[in-house]
């Protein structure tokens, strides 16, 4: 590249590009597209704003400490979120490690170990397709496999396993992207010194891709936190007045309880539901903030 003869002398640029006649037209097109894109952004922002205002105005009145300490009740003024809140936390605590280990493991195998052939291409396509499968279908799978075949019953662990399957494709795909973003020069440097694949993964690839992997995982988990359908499928209860004691306990989660309240005819329950939504949104926001924080903290430049 270096010794490509420098024949292009500075004076060689003799084309005249002064005052092209189509400039006004090009500028006009530019403005039109800018307006279209700005409108798209504005629309989304407006909808989000309406949602937040509506939820807050409706729910802020019911948002009190009682909501965290009481179980669900027939009386709206006494109804609380204790069981579903704890249920959701249990759910996340179980789903996170299961889906992380399975998802990151799969991604590492596919990216770093597997030889690209038809079989791995098939797996790859299927993983991408699974990410688009409706969550109800995963619920059915969970019901047949975990609740009935493995006889786990309508337990937390059955729910967590179902949830893990649901978000697995998202974690696999985002982890693969994070792994692919590691410059291949760094991997080559490691291999060229006689490192094994695992040493290269552990010492070079993972440290460089951890921010991406964790961000993807947390975003996948925050999708799981709001999922209702698969858990209804496997038979999570809508009304319970006890806390889960082990992974075999029956349970409910926040979105199910919220859905249940909004289905009631009494206006007061809708208010409690709105308060529940506020809490759910705050939890989501917290998880996403953690994701952003992790990304910034571990960000490395190459």
């Amino acid at each position, binding site marked *: 590249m270096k010794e490509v003869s420098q024949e292009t002398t500075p004076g060689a640029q003799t084309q005249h590009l002064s005052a092209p006649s189509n400039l006004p037209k090009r500028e006009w097109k530019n403005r039109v597209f800018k307006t279209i894109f700005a409108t798209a952004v504005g629309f989304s922002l407006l909808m989000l704003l309406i949602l937040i205002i509506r939820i807050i105005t409706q729910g802020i009145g019911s948002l009190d400490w009682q909501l965290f300490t009481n179980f669900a009740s027939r009386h709206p003024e006494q109804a609380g979120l204790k069981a579903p809140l704890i249920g959701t936390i249990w759910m996340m605590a179980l789903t996170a490690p299961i889906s992380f280990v399975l998802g990151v493991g799969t991604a590492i195998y596919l990216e770093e170990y597997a030889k690209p052939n038809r079989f791995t291409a098939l797996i790859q396509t299927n993983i991408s397709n699974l990410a688009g499968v409706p969550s109800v279908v995963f619920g059915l799978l969970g019901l047949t496999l975990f609740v009935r075949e493995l006889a786990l019953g309508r337990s937390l662990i059955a729910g967590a396993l179902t949830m893990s399957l649901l978000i697995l494709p998202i974690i696999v795909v985002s982890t693969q992207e994070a792994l692919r973003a590691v410059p291949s020069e760094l991997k080559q440097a490691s291999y*060229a010194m006689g490192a094994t694949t695992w040493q290269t993964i552990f010492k070079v690839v993972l440290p460089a891709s951890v921010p991406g992997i964790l961000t993807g995982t947390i975003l996948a988990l925050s999708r799981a936190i709001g999922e209702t359908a698969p858990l209804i499928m496997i038979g999570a209860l809508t009304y319970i007045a006890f806390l889960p004691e082990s992974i075999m306990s029956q349970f409910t989660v926040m979105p199910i309880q919220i859905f249940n309240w909004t289905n009631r005819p009494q206006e007061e329950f809708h208010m409690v539901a709105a308060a529940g939504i506020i809490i759910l949104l705050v939890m989501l926001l917290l998880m996403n903030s953690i994701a952003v924080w992790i990304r910034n903290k571990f960000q490395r430049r190459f």
Partner: protein
Amino acid sequence: MLASQDKNTEYEENTTTETKKTGDSVYKVDQLNLWYGEDQALKNIELDIPEREVTAIIGPSGCGKSTFIKTLNRLTEMIPSVKTSGGIYYRSQDIFDKKYKVEQLRTKVGMVFQNPNPFPKSIYENIVYGPKIHGIKDKKVLDEIVESSLKGAALWEEVKDDLKRNAFGLSGGQQQRLCIARCLAIEPDVLLMDEPTSALDPISTLKIEELVQELKKNYSIIIVTHNMQQAGRISDNTAFFLNGEVVEYDRTDKIFSSPDDKRTEDYISGRFG
């Protein structure tokens, strides 16, 4: 130009034997063919690479010289579509032998890449990466390796005060010398250099060239270069690659003064490439 002085004295010692196969050879390449899918990138390569000398591989872009040097430590295997036939023998050991571990080969054969590629770690951590993966844990031993490797790569004086500094803070030339030091830390036998100066400025290039002259006392060096003048300055042997074939392989002074092949002469004199 500094290097040419060295080169001349070197030649005086070697002119007694006219053949290029002086001493033992580190690599014997026998009928090597390599394909990327359907495209053949290397055709019937036959080379004997002598030890403790600098062997330069020159040729125009796309002639297979980088592919060839990456075959010597089997790094081409990272590309899935690559197929090879023929043999490469490193110190009489068939490197494609199923029983021969590629990690073992790469411990003996270090590599420096086109663009400096230090790890995003401190200078110290970069050097001890190799020794650590091979199981050295003793802090004292590691400290010694760091010092001797950095001295070997002529970088010690510039960085000794702050070894904990991130390697990305170094200049391009310093980073490349750090990469050389990183190779030296695993005490290799051969150093493969794939256009090590093509991303560097002239002063850094000169430093690397001087370093190569120093290193050949202890290591066998194979260097791919796009730059013919560089090959002329620093190498003892030169192989001219064209379209995946070795057109000519001989002592460097022979190649540059009276090449046997017309194509070599055309390339050397700058008529193409």
